[in-house]
């Protein structure tokens, strides 16, 4: 074997794999981006018109578009991330993916780059384009009640209120938590896409909720045994309010761990996949 070429990661092989994946899937990628742009534009125009027509306009949050965009971004990233290994759903797709001469790490990163990082970056660019379209379209229609815009995309995650949690999320670590969350949420769905290539979104969603219900039940049992639920919750709540930065730092760190574990586990399982079985426990 030629040992001079790195068998785990090689830059030229990586770029060739990235190019191949993007060009071979250009239609799916184009439709995803067009769909995102269309939905964003529609949301922004309708949101703007609804705001202008509202009776008590002064009570409506002027940062509503950013909130809508963040909510849409959170949902869109997990939907797209759950498609990152859709090629594994068919035997022909698995055969092609596993026999192509790049390393499993390169193939794995390429899919992550396209469907997670690439999509998040594309989303911010599309947000700007959609906002410009809103501005232009409403101007052409002779509409005068513009919401502030174009939106600065750094504001999509940033200086706006979240209602109850606003003072917590507007801290330095609160913002860090939101930014890291943008990677952490889809990373679980990337893992889901490797584990369950078919109906990945639904299965991962159900799995996460099953875990959350499990945690809730365990907590309920714990509090029942302890018997002083109110005191514990008050103590924890007080500690969070008095240590906002520390609590958000902990939350951000949990997100970092979740991201690293999800990506690491997804790669490990991807390497172990074979052409016939979709069983992830093999």
């Amino acid at each position, binding site marked *: *074997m*030629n040992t001079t*070429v790195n*068998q785990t990661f*090689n830059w*030229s*092989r990586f770029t*060739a794999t990235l*190019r*191949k994946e993007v*060009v*071979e*899937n250009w*239609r799916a990628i184009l439709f995803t981006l067009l769909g995102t742009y269309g939905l964003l534009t529609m949301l922004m125009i309708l949101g703007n018109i609804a705001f202008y027509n509202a009776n008590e306009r002064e009570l409506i949050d002027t940062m509503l578009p950013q909130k809508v965009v963040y909510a849409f971004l959170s949902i869109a990233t997990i939907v797209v991330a759950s498609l990152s290994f859709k090629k594994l759903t*068919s*035997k*022909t*797709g*698995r*055969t*092609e993916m*596993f*026999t*192509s*001469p*790049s*390393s*499993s790490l*390169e193939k794995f990163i390429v899919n992550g780059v396209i469907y997670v990082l690439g999509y998040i970056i594309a989303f911010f660019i599309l947000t700007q384009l959609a906002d410009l379209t809103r501005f232009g379209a409403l101007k052409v229609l002779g509409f005068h009640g513009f919401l502030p815009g174009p939106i600065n995309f750094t504001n999509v995650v940033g200086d706006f209120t979240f209602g109850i949690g606003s003072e917590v999320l507007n801290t330095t670590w609160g913002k860090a938590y939101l930014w890291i969350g943008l990677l952490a949420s889809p990373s679980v769905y990337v893992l889901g896409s490797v584990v369950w290539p078919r109906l990945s979104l639904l299965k991962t969603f159900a799995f996460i909720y099953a875990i959350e219900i499990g945690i809730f039940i365990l907590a309920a049992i714990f509090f029942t045994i302890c018997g002083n639920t109110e005191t514990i919750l008050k103590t924890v709540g007080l500690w969070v309010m008095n240590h906002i930065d520390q609590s958000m730092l902990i939350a951000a760190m949990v997100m970092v761990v979740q991201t690293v574990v999800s990506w690491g586990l997804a790669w490990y399982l991807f390497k*172990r996949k*074979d*052409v*016939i*079985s979709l069983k992830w426990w093999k």
Partner: protein
Amino acid sequence: MFTIDQISFSYNKRNGDLLHDFSLELKAGNVYGLLGKNGAGKSTLIYLLTGLLTPASGVVLMDGENVRRRLPQTMSDLFLIPEEFELPRLTLKKYVSLNAPFYPRFSMQDMERYLDIFEMGGMMDVKLHSLSMGQKKKVFMAFAFATNTRALIMDEPTNGLDIPSKSQFRKLVTSGMTDDKLMLISTHQVRDISDILDHVVIIDQSRVLLNAGIAEVMNRVAFRPLREGDEPIFVLQSPFGPLGAVPARDGEETKVDLEMLFNAALQNPEAINQLFTTQK
């Protein structure tokens, strides 16, 4: 080139091993025909050879490297033409430009030559999704051969090809073969490939029933109308009287009838084994 060392594999433990303690050596310079009944494990063996399945025990090595690791170096020297495949919605030229960089020995001249063999020359600008299934297969095979990987493994390559294309395929194999290459063709259409094989491997129920060169088969088995005194391994009734696979007498050489050889190996494995293990 390939060493299959005591591998065991099962899709479902309850159904027992499909391959059990299975060993086989495949050497460069040969066009192997892999024959076996439905469910004998031909496709499984192909997947194991290309690192697409993991044996429960044992190992498959290509030039000493475990293929299951699917290292880029190994995969760039190994091409699988599966029975079913998909091609992207691109032109052939674009497909080649995207995939050829992964294969260091890829040759554009060879690609054009192989397309010419399939009478598809000058079709580099054709959109792959507009081709028929047979045309897609020919284009894919032309690309596979042009990669010049040392191992080329084909699963039912003549399925979906029309009659002229089958003879073009034989021409493709003979023109693409060199001493440092290994080709393995798994098929049920033995008549399509009987003239191009120089080695035949027949498997059944985890066993290699026969692993012999065509020259050796010719030397040991004769395929002809039965004569008095023959002790046939397999008999086939034909309109012209019984035909049989019989131990070849001294100096007797006939064209190898793969179908008859296959049936003989399945129906009378002990006789075949004895015939090929005794010194001649």
